[in-house]
């Protein structure tokens, strides 16, 4: 687990996705080939930091947690469209349940995601909050 977290840390800390230099399409999670222009030239796919702002296009309040997220319940989760059009799913923090609505603006924050155990490694990554 620790190694796989180390491998993806940039993706988790700053939402590093991909850009196709051929057609300028952006992607998150990162891609191997461009599905928009079908470019097969791997050298055209570069890392790209995604915009930190976007809007909520769907949301849910989860009451059945996955293992390791028991303390987050009720957990507010949203489908977000970033300002470049890329969509991702993330937890929304620092707001009351009734504050979440479709169309509201959100921005990226750096937060603790979960920990291995009480004395184990802590994993960090992106979440979003209303602004």
């Amino acid at each position, binding site marked *: 687990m620790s190694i796989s977290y180390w491998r993806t840390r940039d993706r988790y800390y700053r939402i590093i996705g991909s850009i196709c230099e051929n057609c300028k399409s952006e992607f998150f999670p990162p891609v191997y080939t461009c599905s928009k222009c079908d470019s097969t030239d791997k050298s055209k796919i570069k890392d790209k930091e995604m915009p930190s702002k976007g809007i909520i296009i769907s949301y849910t*309040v989860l009451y059945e947690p*996955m293992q390791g997220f028991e303390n987050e319940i009720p957990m507010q*989760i949203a489908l977000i469209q970033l300002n470049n059009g890329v969509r*991702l799913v*993330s937890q929304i923090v620092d707001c009351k349940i009734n504050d979440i609505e*479709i169309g509201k603006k959100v921005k990226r924050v750096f937060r603790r995601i979960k920990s291995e155990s009480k004395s184990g490694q802590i994993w960090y990554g992106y979440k979003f909050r209303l602004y």
Partner: protein
Amino acid sequence: MSVNIAGTGLTKISEHWSKSIIDLAVMSGRQALSESDISPDMIIIGNMLSSYASNQENLGSIISEKLGLQGTTTFKIESSSCSGAMAVHIANNILSGKDRGTSGINSILVIGVEKMSDLSPSQLVQAISLGESYEYLQFFGVGMTSLYALFSRLYMDHYNISKDDLSYFPALSHKNSVSCKHAQFNREFSVESISKSPIISSPLSLLDCSPIGDGSAAVVLTALESSNNSDSTNVKILSSSASNSTVNFFERSDMLKFYATEQCISKALSESQIKLSDIDLIEVHDVVPAITANILESLGFSKPGKAVSDVISGKYNLNSRPFLSTSGGLKARGNPLSATGIYQIIEITRQLQNKSDNNINNTHIGLSQNMSGIDSNSVIHILGVVN
């Protein structure tokens, strides 16, 4: 070369505390073998969770040995919650292939099995989400239920459909499962009680979601012209098709479009030369109501945004063709992931043979649709009676 369904077997879907994954697979496998009276040349197991829930792999060898079958080719197929239908699809391809004559494979036993009840509630939330991205969803605590919920809200908002109206689908499933002996639930629920049940992941309530259960279902497929079950109507696979799409539904240009299912139905109808209007009964991957509605629309049985008004008006009940989920579907019969696709195929087979617990007379053609995730992979079978 046409492929016949020569035998079927299944267990009741339930929390089988006293039975292991192997016990369940052997139960359904034995029934199917006994009904067909065929010794298979190949055994294919459809399964998703054996490593996670039972610390067991090599299911093909283990289950075949316990069935007393040795000297055959055996392996497992995994494609998340459509592993069962995918295993039948692969078996059908092998049996109907041009080079079958030289392969010596004439009959295949396909067993779908899933053991889920050994897991704790939070392990189960993860288990049903294993088909989604670990790095970008599971890692953040986002599982299958949350994704169904996000999709459901998009569907409801786009077509202006209420949560109460969506509850007509689970209500229909529970009504149909009352007389089905192998269903996990044999009771009805009112639309209001479904809609008002506790929220699991808004807008989804407990009774919107298909339940957790253990189960196994098996079929013997044969390319031999005359199968031995002469007392049964001969049911044939008219088409078997599979197609995939992006794993994340939210990466699709139109998030409500089930590209895989649309491609699959197009291939299935063309291969079988069947029209939608010829189909008497359907089994779909009715895991939560908005997904059920979107599948029926993608298949073409309802117009976009109209599946809910269609079910409310009675289009899919047992008095109106096409009959939907005649033994309760995933929602009420139960959803032991990799076994589900084979339970669907068996329900259609038994309806066509007039042997279903909830029998409807005079049916000739049925369609089953099984999928993983939110249309990341879709498998469709069209079955028909051979006169």
